């Protein structure tokens, strides 16, 4: 009985993979049809896009711009995470501070990314710093909200117990705060990466001097539609890779950890 259930699950999984593959083929076919209908300039065919991508890779441009984007993302998300984490911890423990931080949180969460990008450009001009600043500013409020909720949800009774047994601040952090907030920490990290990659590419497009977003802008400026499609494909590939390689495993690990507790 148990074996047959596992077998059914495996079949279902393979079935889904097969359906995904069919969907991918349909997308490719639609792309090819559009390319034939509208012409290579407006919609370069899949083969032309892949050839362009291969050319960019051979010249080393693809790796160079990809690595720059990853540097922008890592620095921006890291700064945003540290900023949001610290503010979230303070606001979680001191509810009065939470009210002081509220206006910043509302602006950070509601302001459209182009608005922040334009202001950042006005202040810092065009360059790497502006991109990192934009990414940090987009990710920090998301991390802040998640961490603050985590602190609020810590079991007060456990904290009382720790106080009675004279736990040191380090022990409190290591044995109570971090384990109790692990799901929120993971959620904030994944938010930082998911939204960070979009902000980074957008920032590079608007106010960067390097990175995939900037390369996309340069290709659009030169009216090189095959390169535009090649860089767009790279952006999608990058966002998907981060989702599959980092975000999803982190999420499932955190869920599994929570269920085990």
């Amino acid at each position, binding site marked *: 009985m148990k074996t047959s259930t596992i077998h059914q699950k495996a079949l279902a999984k393979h079935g889904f993979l097969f359906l995904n593959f069919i969907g991918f083929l349909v997308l490719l076919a639609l792309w090819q049809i559009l390319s034939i209908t509208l012409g290579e300039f407006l919609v370069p065919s899949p083969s032309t896009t892949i050839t362009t991508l291969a050319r960019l890779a051979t010249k080393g441009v693809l790796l160079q711009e990809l690595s720059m984007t990853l540097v922008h993302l890592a620095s921006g998300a890291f700064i945003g995470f540290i900023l949001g984490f610290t503010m979230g911890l303070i606001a979680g423990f001191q509810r009065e501070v939470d009210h002081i931080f509220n206006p910043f949180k509302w602006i950070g969460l509601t302001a459209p990314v182009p608005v922040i990008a334009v202001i950042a450009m006005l202040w810092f001009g065009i360059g790497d710093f502006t991109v990192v600043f934009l990414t940090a500013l987009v990710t920090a409020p998301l991390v802040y909200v998640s961490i603050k909720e985590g602190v609020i949800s810590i079991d007060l009774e456990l904290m009382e117990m720790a106080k009675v*047994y004279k736990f040191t601040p380090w022990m409190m952090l290591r044995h109570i705060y971090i384990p109790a907030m692990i799901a929120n920490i993971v959620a904030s990290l994944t938010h930082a990466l998911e939204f960070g990659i979009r902000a980074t590419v957008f920032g590079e497009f608007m106010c960067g001097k390097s990175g995939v977003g900037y390369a996309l802008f340069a290709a659009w400026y030169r009216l090189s539609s095959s390169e535009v499609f090649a860089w767009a494909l790279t952006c999608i590939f990058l966002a998907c890779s981060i989702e599959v390689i980092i975000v999803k495993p982190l999420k499932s690990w955190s869920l599994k950890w929570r269920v085990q507790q």
Partner: protein
Amino acid sequence: MNIAVRLKSVTKSFNGVKVLDNIDLEVCRNDYLLLLGPNGAGKTTLLKIIMNVLKPDKGTVEVYCKRISCVFQEPRLLPWKTALDNVALPLIARGMSKGKARKIAGEWLHKVGLQGYENYYPRQLSSGQQQRVAIARAFAIEPDLLLLDEPTSNLDPENKRYVMKLIKKLLNEFKTTVIHVTHDPLEALNLATRIAYISYDHKLQVYDRSEAGKVLRSCGLTGVSYMKAIDQLEAHRFITASESPPLIIKNIHEGKS
């Protein structure tokens, strides 16, 4: 007199509602103070003030004990730590090496009958077993003040009996000052050296063990429960049989127990 805890004119309110009103209390070393009273009278608040988790609005609290431990109503174990680590952590917090702390924790788990459960997580243990881990944790630091905050109130009758028996056994081996909060006077009457009663008006009265009969009446014990308590007290020569009031006997006859 060797004082362990002294409270002077302690008052505490929550949102304008008075929970403790001008409480004076002295607990001597090796005393077993049974702190009784109805739900909401302020027993746990008083205990929290003694353990320095809450600050009083008025009055002074003097605690002359360095190693304070508490068995709470709920086990309050860290769900992400094993039984062994839960017992070892308070020892580590007091500067003991991890290895030595784990060794001592293992010995205490053995004493509470949980040998073989060292690597179990709280979710893998029954509520009675979890409370036994909490008892091991409380005794492991060799407290000079042990606070028991209704340690059996969340347990079924069988586990209740087992846990109280265990606490009594451990206290026979290890003498310490105990403040035991409960609303069930039958739980530890035979251990108490003094009995304190917090009434609904949040005032505290302390009785000597010879006055236990008065306390039982304050607790509103009637009928069979009262007689059981009297039997228990008589067995431990706390009071004389003449203290049982006729009114209560009448209740038994009328079947109001």
